[in-house]
């Protein structure tokens, strides 16, 4: 039995599609994410439903053998996980967001609001301007809109939220994808099945 952690929220639908492409039937599993734990003996798996930020911890500690989580979260967590595949669906991007299209002038210091302080710090290291990182836990777009910060670093999918709040995407920084993550010890135990899932996902174009 492989214990598989599914993400709640935006990555759940692409995760289910990829797992179905891998050959799992997932009978009775829907994309509501309400069922926290479900045994699927016909697929030889048990599903856990976890929040994105908790999921890597469960996999790293071996509570779950593998799971699907966004690369935005993985980049923020100093974990030791295998990442054999990035899903083709559900991709979005990290973007610098502000009230105008102008980046800060060289040598200037701004406030940058984000849920992703490590990613933001890495971004700022390579820039001619400096930034104080303001860590927020949600509604990051409000920070530049209400002048808590000059810039925000956040995920952008369609850009509609930005437009609705009078903001613009200044720069696309990096692509973000849901990723299959696997516990190191679990990979050694379940290598054959996990590789077979990956082969089928690749054949179906579900990973890239």
């Amino acid at each position: 039995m492989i214990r598989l952690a599914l993400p709640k929220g935006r990555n759940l639908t692409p995760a289910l599609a990829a797992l179905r492409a891998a050959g799992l039937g997932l009978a009775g599993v829907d994309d509501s994410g309400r069922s926290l734990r479900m045994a699927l003996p016909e697929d030889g798996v048990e599903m856990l439903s976890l929040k994105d930020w908790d999921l890597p911890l469960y996999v790293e500690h071996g509570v779950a053998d593998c799971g699907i989580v966004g690369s935005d979260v993985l980049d923020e967590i100093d974990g030791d996980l295998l990442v054999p595949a990035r899903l083709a669906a559900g991709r979005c991007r990290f973007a610098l967001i502000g009230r105008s299209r102008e980046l800060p002038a060289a040598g200037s210091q701004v406030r940058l609001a984000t849920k992703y302080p490590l990613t933001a710090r890495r971004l700022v290291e390579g820039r001619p301007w400096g930034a104080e990182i303001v860590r927020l836990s949600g509604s990051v777009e409000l920070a530049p809109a209400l002048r808590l910060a000059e810039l925000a670093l956040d995920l952008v999918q369609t850009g509609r939220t930005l437009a609705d709040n009078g903001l613009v995407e200044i720069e696309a920084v990096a692509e973000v994808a849901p990723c299959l993550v696997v516990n190191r010890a679990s990979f050694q135990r379940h290598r054959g099945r996990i590789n077979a899932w990956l082969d089928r996902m690749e054949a179906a174009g579900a990973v890239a």
Partner: protein
Amino acid sequence: MKVSTALPTGVAALLFESARSRRRLEGRLAALVESRGYEEAILPILDYVEPYEALLTPASRGELYRFIDRDGEQLALRADFTPMLARLLAPRLHSLRLPLRLFYRGDVVRYEESRPGSRRELYQMGVELLGMEGPEAGEPAEREERREPGEPGAATEDAEREVLALFLEALAGSGGGPRQVVLGLAGCLDSALLTAAGGTSPAALAAAVARRERSVVRRACAVLLPIVETGLPERPEDLGPAAAARLRWLLALREELALRFPAVQLSVDLAEFARYSRHPDLVAEAGARSYYDGLVFRAYAGAAAVPVGGGGRYGSLFRALGADIDAVGFSLNLDGMLEAGEGAIGENVPAGEAMAPSGGRAGKRALL
């Protein structure tokens, strides 16, 4: 007055049965290695930083607890026994009878990010076999003639076999749940990594192999793809003649030891150690224990992704200290072994019962 019972992050106090369990395991392991001719070395917990400066990688530097002593010397808490033993012995080897078989036990203290289950103080026991190319090697000439340039001598391979077998014996005899030991060879992917294409640097490719990122590896170096998937190349020759010869030796060794230790699941997986490079451009990326240069191995117990032990050959560490000898060793994390034996976090909890994301029995063991 209210007295706090809190301890700093990453440390634990063991009382009662927890303390007795660790001492029992320690006693069994010490008796085992002593019975195989290993003598105990007792090393200090505090040492100067300066002798290790040239040996530190960014990762090993980051895990040191350093401070300035009252006399102005920069000191560090012991984070690893092996370099300490190496730097104490390297200048004295000419006056010692080789090979040396030593074992140690005690705490290492390493800074780790605060996460559930992570430890900053680890109680280890380990062994080191040093200087096996000495007069007792006595290897047959025909065994040497078959060797590729860059391959170690037969005495070195015998030492690797001896230490790995002792590691497996220690694991197999420690009770508890299933054990998996993964074997690899430091540096055997270097030539493939250095041919990385598509704008991927060799260091980034090594990291991608270690994380088994199929698409990155497929784009950068197709020869490495089967290694990401199965742990092995399609053909040993794909890795070059010296690495191929070593891989064939390792596969034969795995067969031999799997028969001797059926309780341990033994596999060869070169991707697991992809970052253990010997190339100067890659070695700084190899992590905190980057000194391995031959056989490498690590053990998993239960479900945890953190190995309960590991080791390998590390002659380059002695050579960096001016002593031209080879060395092989391993260490075991005793508390990790005990926790795995009791059942890992969330393991075997039937659906419908409460499941804690952290703590588990490991949490109960740490009584204060």
